[in-house]
């Protein structure tokens, strides 16, 4: 029973992170969203007793894809300074 509840909670988290990473306009946050997607997906594979696939997802999805995307964002553009200034004005 607890197993099924865990699976449902994880599926909801997976969908939330995926939708977040599609919808959000800031590229860095979208990349973090894909990171969370692959973290939860890896736990999914692990729960379904496929450790090989879980290992691949952990090695490639979390580390390598995130890193390559962030280096690509560094080489192109992403506006964050405006966000920080707005937040500091609020405080």
């Amino acid at each position, binding site marked *: 029973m607890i197993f099924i509840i865990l699976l449902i909670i994880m599926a909801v988290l997976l969908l939330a992170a995926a939708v977040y990473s599609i919808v959000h306009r800031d590229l860095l946050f979208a990349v973090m969203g894909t990171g969370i997607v692959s973290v939860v997906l890896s736990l999914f594979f692990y729960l379904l007793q496929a*450790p*090989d696939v*879980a*290992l*691949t997802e952990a*090695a*490639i999805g979390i*580390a*390598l894809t995130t*890193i*390559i995307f962030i*280096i*690509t964002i*560094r*080489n*192109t*553009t992403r506006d964050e300074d405006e966000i920080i200034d707005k937040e500091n004005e609020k405080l």
Partner: protein
Amino acid sequence: MKNVFIIILLVVIGYFLANTFADIPFGENRIGDIESSETVAGYYLSNTVEKSKVANVITAIVVNYRGLDTLGEVTVLFLASTGLASILYRRKEEEEDVERLNLPSSRIMRTGVRVLFPSIVLLGIYVFIHGHLTPGGGFQGGTIVATGFLLMLISYKGFNTNHNRMVWIESLAGLSFVGIGIWGLLSGNTFLENSTNVGVLNSLISGGLIPIIYIVVGFKVAVELTGILDILLKIKPKK
């Protein structure tokens, strides 16, 4: 005129695709019973452990039965790395001193990375040496090693990778993969045939050629990914 041509082309392609898909039976169990040894999955599950002495059946499928596919995957990775290098490597000649990092990292991070780097590389090597016993294998181990090198690259300014040595390692690894395959042909079997059955099940030396192929793949993937990350980090961002 152009649009009419496109429509005619799409209709022809669609007709042949529909014909092809109509032949595929939907809703039937085409894999068959896994337990019976007449289907492919059943053959793999029942014969792998006895014949080639490999504890991890997935490894045997990836490297032994579908070894030619693995060769193709490694080739794709090699082509991607080569293409990236040939596009981006020219930037270095235009600007004299390419600085990888704008700010130095803190002393805490440098010390931590110096502790973690050898252990991460060792863990990656462990993963691809034990590919036939535990989950993981060449690709995963190579990725972990490349991640360790990336940590070094982003925290130390003076850390550089030797491109000549990397090219040599990559070429040797690719050559020995193909060489193992051709050796199978020369000894009277098929390409990449696992012809030597040495060792006992569940020990480090078992499975014949499978651990050797995984070690070769691990070195190749690690070197290629490190090269890709190094080249990407050396581009100057636009201000």
